[in-house]
């Protein structure tokens, strides 16, 4: 992850071959492993690495993943999202003057996304149709050489992590009174075959509601009591 000088001593506690392999990998994909800034609430849950693809199942999560980089001064783009909510994005800290929208890329969506990946740091894509592995492979290789992050709202063949909203509840309205105030959602992060990590986030702001639960149900129970 860190680009240490090549002469740093190897860690005797670990396998030499593994460590060397890591170094070679880091050198081959030179800028790709650098970390992309995220919102503080998401930093522990899903650290974004340049060159990776992340899949999400809600527009709010996609926006939250892009907002951190944008707030840190990077350019971000949204392809295939005709229902972009500019005000919500601005509330999350996304800098609208550094945001590129291609609401309807049509049949050229793959080329458009590839061109955006060339110059932007985070690109959010909602693919208009099912994506085959070949098309995904083209984008993946482009991503790695350009040190960008692709966030896919929808399905994608190979991803570094898949984020999904498992449980969500809004507080505020009751029988015609009040208004939407706050939303608590449990977000599950699945990486490959590992057991999913879960965390509770609070909107607006995508702030962490409680410490990340390492697949145990402890912090879940009080939350249910509180909101139920």
């Amino acid at each position, binding site marked *: 992850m860190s680009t240490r000088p090549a002469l740093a001593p190897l860690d005797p506690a670990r396998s030499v071959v593994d460590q060397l392999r890591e170094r070679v990998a880091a050198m081959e994909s030179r800028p790709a492993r650098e970390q992309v800034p995220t919102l503080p609430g998401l930093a522990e849950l899903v650290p974004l690495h340049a060159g990776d693809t992340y899949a999400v199942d809600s527009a709010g999560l996609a926006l939250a993943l892009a907002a951190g980089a944008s707030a840190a001064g990077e350019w971000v783009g949204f392809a295939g999202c005709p*229902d972009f*909510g500019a005000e919500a994005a601005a509330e999350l800290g996304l800098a609208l003057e550094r945001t*590129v929208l291609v609401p309807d890329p049509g049949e050229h969506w793959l080329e*458009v996304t590839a061109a955006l990946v060339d*110059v932007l740091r985070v690109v959010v894509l909602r693919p208009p149709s099912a994506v085959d592995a070949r098309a995904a492979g083209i984008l993946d290789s482009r991503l790695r050489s350009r040190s960008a992050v692709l966030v896919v709202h929808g399905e994608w063949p190979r991803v570094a992590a898949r984020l999904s909203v498992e449980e969500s509840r809004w507080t505020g309205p009751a029988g015609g009174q009040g*208004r939407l105030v706050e939303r608590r959602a449990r977000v599950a992060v699945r990486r490959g075959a590992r057991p999913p990590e879960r965390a509770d986030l609070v909107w*607006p702001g995508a702030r962490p509601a409680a410490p990340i639960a390492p697949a145990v149900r402890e912090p879940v129970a009080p939350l249910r009591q509180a909101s139920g």
Partner: protein
Amino acid sequence: MRVMVVWCPDWSVVAGLAETGQPPRTPAAVLSANIVEVCNAPARAEGVRRGHRRRDAQSRCPELALLPANPDLDARAFEPVLAAVEELRPGVAALRPGLLAVRAPGSWFGSEANAAATVCQVLVESGVWDVRLGIADDLFTAEQAARSAEAQGWRVVPPGGSGAFLRGLPVHVLEGDGPQGREAVSLFHRLGLRTLGELAALPGEAVEHRLGAYGASVWRRARGADPALFAARTPPPELDAEVVFEPPLDSVEAVTFSVRTTAERFLAQLARHQLVATGVRVEAEADGEVCSARTWLHPRHFSARDLVDRVHWQLQSGVPGAGVRSRREAGVVRAPIERVRFLPEVCEPAAAHGEALWGSASDDLVERGVARVQGMVGFEAVRRPVLQGGRGPAARQALVPWGERAVGLRPVDRPWPGRVPGPAPVRVFAQQPVAEVVDDAGRPVVVSDRGAVTGEPRRFRFGGDAVEPSLPWHPVTAWAGPWPVDEAWWTDGATGPTSRFQVVGADGRAWLLVCAPGGWSVEAGYD
């Protein structure tokens, strides 16, 4: 030095009638704050006078054309007149719209009367009907001479004859000086002074003591001894640039390739005047007439590459079936282009747009990359989100084409009563899909004229699968509202009173639904 003054009477009315495309003999008046400020001769013939209220003016002349006061328009419309006189004699000074002064052209035209006749003829040919000229030793006398001339006529006051000419004029010619002049005229009448000659005969010191600096200047002017000169303007520099293709080119790519040096020259000559262009009009000519013209605004300022891109998009969008095009047909234009012209519309000082010391390389890179995307999917398909004021989420944002400046946005900092409170929705639908909302008994929920909800929303579903193809009916777990709004009810396109509801579905997602007289629709989603 002899001075020639060109006076176009009632210029505001002339300019206003020309702008609205009405014949110049229509009785018309320019109103400011419901008071007639200027009216033309046909209106005066009907009894309309300056200072009348709108009602009085209309009661005297019902067919009176009312024009709003627009000083910018007056000045703009006067520019061709200045240019026409400048052609004949450089050193023109615009005193105010409708009145210009120039050093009298003398011997070159034979005599001063011949010069006046020539200027008059040129102006009448350029479409200014009522033009009057005066030539005299000083500015004030020349102006009075012009005012005493006939339409399309001139009056020459011989050298040294200013005093004799002015002596017979009544004092109310000073009303042309504005409120100060009108006040002085009223005072002169009360003092028993009827003509400028009587005023000029008074001792100068006494006039200055009684009437102050303005009175003294009037006294000097009335004696024809006013040394007031005018500052001649420098003609504005010609900053347009054009390129001619011989033979005409019939492919967009060829045109785009060939305009690059012209675009660079265009920007270089602006840069010589320390200007940058933020709005440029691009015109393309085919078969001797302008076939494509469009004004492009840039959020920062144009570079040569930006201009070339704009030419490309503009010519390409003229091709039928624009938008997402097949690559093969993209490069054909309708008629061979023989000329492309750049006209600067908005220029700003270059100092206001200086680059940061360390440059903005990454932004340039993004601009280039986005221009490439625009080349793929069309200029309008790449957008930049901006916030604006409004009540619903859809009205509170705008997607501006990339590379255009946002214009006509509603201000954000107003209160916008009736807007939906709470966090902003993440998804805002541009085309709002229809929805259905029913109560316990399955009856559709509606909002009555008095803003009451007929039943508690229990279930809702979306029409079509624009939002998402999911469960046919979502149960409502919580709802809030209505927020009634009746916007722009005075326009034809108004939808009538609408009410917004926040509705939370069983899956924990909330939606912003709109109940209009025509039925429910989904405006936004709190995903």
